[in-house]
């Protein structure tokens, strides 16, 4: 701001320090003027505000200092969680009521059957029906390798395909593709060109997943093969392990 006062010189630091200390003391001497009163009042205001703010901050600061959009986000999250839990409670209490009513064990049996069906489908030991897609990979030059088919399968799985069949063979969790002398094999069985994938899952999601730029169909095209996707309302996969 302003230049140092003229009496301050590097040669004589002692007297200037005393001058400043004296000035500080003079500052401390009370004088009854309007300006002094106002200054005191403003200082009082600062002290008051600081203490108020410190005390306000001491409580739960997570929500007190959050902005509106953050609070809305938290509220939304809590509401959807509440909905989900309510639905869970409804489901479970219905099951509980059924189980209590049921003396001959029918409900328990049905529940167990339903679960067995689900696990059977996931494990590939039961046939399944549902909407899905059929993907045909035409490969006239035999350029498609096992890892490209594996990529295709993983893309389908990521997109929510629950049941997959390739050329009449069920694909399960530990299935593998292998490059062999006579072409690609799946779990040791030979596959023939064109490769026909059947996948049960949401047809739209599955199609979108295969059509991602630089994804499955693009890389097939680069290799000289073509993948054709048809959506179907109902696909039945009968191949089992």
């Amino acid at each position, binding site marked *: *701001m*302003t230049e*140092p*006062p003229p009496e301050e010189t590097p040669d004589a*630091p002692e007297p*200037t*320090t005393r001058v*400043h*200390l004296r*000035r*500080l003391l003079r*500052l*401390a*001497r*009370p*004088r009854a*003027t*309007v*300006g*002094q*009163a*106002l*200054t*005191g*009042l*403003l*200082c*009082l*205001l*600062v*002290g*008051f*505000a*600081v*203490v*108020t*703010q410190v*005390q*306000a901050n001491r409580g739960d600061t997570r929500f*007190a200092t959050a*902005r509106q959009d953050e609070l809305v986000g938290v509220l939304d999250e809590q509401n959807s969680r509440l909905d989900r839990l309510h639905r869970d409670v409804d489901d479970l209490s219905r099951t509980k009521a059924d189980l209590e009513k049921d003396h001959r064990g029918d409900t328990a049996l049905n529940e167990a059957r339903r679960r067995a069906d689900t696990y059977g489908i996931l494990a590939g030991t039961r046939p399944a029906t549902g909407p899905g897609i059929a993907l045909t990979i035409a490969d006239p030059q035999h350029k498609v390798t096992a890892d490209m088919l594996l990529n295709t399968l993983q893309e389908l799985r990521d997109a929510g395909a629950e049941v997959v069949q390739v050329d009449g063979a069920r694909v399960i969790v530990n299935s593998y593709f292998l490059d062999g002398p006579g072409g690609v094999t799946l779990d040791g069985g030979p596959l023939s060109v064109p490769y026909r994938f059947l996948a049960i899952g949401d047809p739209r999601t599955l199609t979108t997943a295969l059509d991602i730029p630089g994804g499955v169909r693009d890389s097939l095209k680069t290799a000289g093969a073509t993948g054709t996707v048809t959506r179907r309302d109902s696909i039945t996969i009968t191949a089992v392990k």
Partner: protein
Amino acid sequence: MIAVIGLAAGVVLGLILHPAVPLALQPYLPIAIVAALDALFGALRARLEGVFDEKVFVVSFVSNTVIAAVIVLLGDLIGVGSQLSTAVVVVLGIRIFANVAAIRRKLFHA
């Protein structure tokens, strides 16, 4: 002296009255406090340099706090409230450090 007494009285009053910050003022009080601190340190520096003027102090104190709060209010209205309050705190913090450094040089020549 009166300033120090005022400061102490304010702290004591705050501790005794235990006031709750009104909801509408909550985002602006911290900024106003930082602005007031800047004015206080500026006043101390001016006094040590021998250019202190009570009128200047009162006006700068009030305008500092009001402008800081208004900037944050404006920021809240146009959707950049948190960024603007950060900006205000940074600028005022730099000024406070500069003022304290000047005070330190005056008092201790260091």
